């Protein structure tokens, strides 16, 4: 059994020994980006909890939620639980990931166009 050694994951080597390149961050920038990302994550997590727990919560307070029939006859509760929530999760994840990527693009590193311009 040799999983611990042979399964080599890229990037698991010790970073400090790697040669340093043109790309680098300063501690203040990284700290700022981390705090902004944390805020993004917490906001989206709150939204996620609201939706996920909201579906069962509505069954307790709103009879219509589990007795009404949507077009096919399924109750809104069943529709959400059996399929709607997955779509919500996916869209939420997509939005959160896009925002997080955008934040990282903007808060760390330089703009590409400036980086690669020649003859500056």
């Amino acid at each position: 059994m040799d999983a611990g050694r042979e399964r080599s994951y890229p990037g698991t080597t010790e970073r400090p020994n790697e040669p340093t390149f043109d790309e680098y961050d300063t501690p203040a920038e990284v700290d700022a980006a981390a705090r902004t990302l944390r805020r993004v994550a917490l906001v989206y997590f709150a939204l996620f909890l609201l939706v996920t727990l909201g579906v069962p919560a509505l069954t307790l307070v709103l009879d219509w939620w589990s007795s009404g029939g949507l077009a096919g006859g399924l109750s809104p509760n069943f529709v959400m639980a059996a399929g709607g929530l997955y779509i919500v999760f996916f869209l939420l994840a997509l939005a959160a990931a896009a925002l997080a990527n955008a934040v990282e693009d903007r808060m760390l590193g330089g703009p590409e166009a400036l980086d690669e311009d020649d003859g500056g």
Partner: protein
Amino acid sequence: MRGGGLLAAALAALWGLTYLVTQVIVQPPLAAGRMVLAGLVLSTVLTLGYPSVLRGPRMYRRRWPPSRARRVGQVGQTSGAARRAEPAPISIMGSSMPLRSGLTAEAANRTVTLLRPMLGADAVAITDRQQVLAFVGPGRDHHHPGKATITAATRKVLEGARTKVLHSAGALGCPEPSCPLSSAVIAPLHVGDSVVGALKVYRVDETAPSRDLVQGMAGILSLHLELADMDRERRLSASARLDALRAQINPHFLFNTLNTIASRARTHPEEARQLLLRLSDFFRYSTRQQGQFADFGQEYFFVRTYLALEQARFGERLAVRYDVDPQVLGVQIPVLVVQPLVENAVKHGLAQSVKGGTVSLKARFDPLRRVTRIVVRDDGVGMDPATLESALRHDGEMGGIGLRNIGERLENLFGERYRMDLRSRPDDGTTVDLRIPLR
């Protein structure tokens, strides 16, 4: 305002969907009060969340113009020019009226083509004070554009600033005997009090075109020329001020940074290399940045670059703390406003203090009031009220960009709709609190 329109559309769609789901396709429908409640909850979530959802992916996709495109197709330049065109509402209107961009041969050409059928004329020409700019219609072979203004009649109109009606080929005074034109109305084009050119409308028969019609059209064209002139002036003055700013990189800063780099070159070559890269980023941004506005993200990059260089110089004495709202990153803000504020904080707040301190930049976006708030704070030496007062009134001393300069520019862009508060006490640091509306 496109963000506002989108939000309104999204809200409308949300209510429509809520109505559809709770009332139409469901049996039994949800009670009206509960539907309204559900709609309100969803609307609140949407209103609060829309900046992050909309701005996130959009700015991610656009990112920065790729350099490859710039190299090959000059896309960078085009977009730079497009950004330079300021958003004044008239300038959008202007795109349909050629002369709106000024009295040039190309604009005149498009104008005469446009005017000929409108005026029921056989030929139309526009001249400036020296030459024919455009001519369309019979006789074009010898009235070709670029030719010096020929007829005495035109010269008279340019000098007398009065409209002239000519009923015969002789009165026209065309030196070419085969010229088919035999009557004309010549009206002057004004900008302010001076005549800058003439509009000439010809017929091949001897019934001249309506004088009033031509004169009216010349009036309209004059108005457009006048607006174009004002535009250009405004743009010139604004960009002249900006260019001055851009060129105004503090020589002390450059000197100090180069010193820092030189001192590291032997002991920490890698760090020196990184600092050099930063310095080049700094200059590239300050010289290549075009236009009045930029994404906050870009300005933030500029500030980061600046502060990284200053941190290298001051070492432990300068701490930096950024606190940036995710939504704010994609908002357009006026260029070269934040960095000077930060530079002031370093230069006046901390550089003189022995123990150093922290410069913090906080940026928030209020989605409901659509206001961007930028707070630059230092916990350095601060100022007494008198110094504070004079800082507001005078331009920065040599090499710095003063608060007054920033204030003037903001006023130019936003009128009364921005706010800049300054708070400072001796030994308690300085805070600049800037609030600017969404463009």
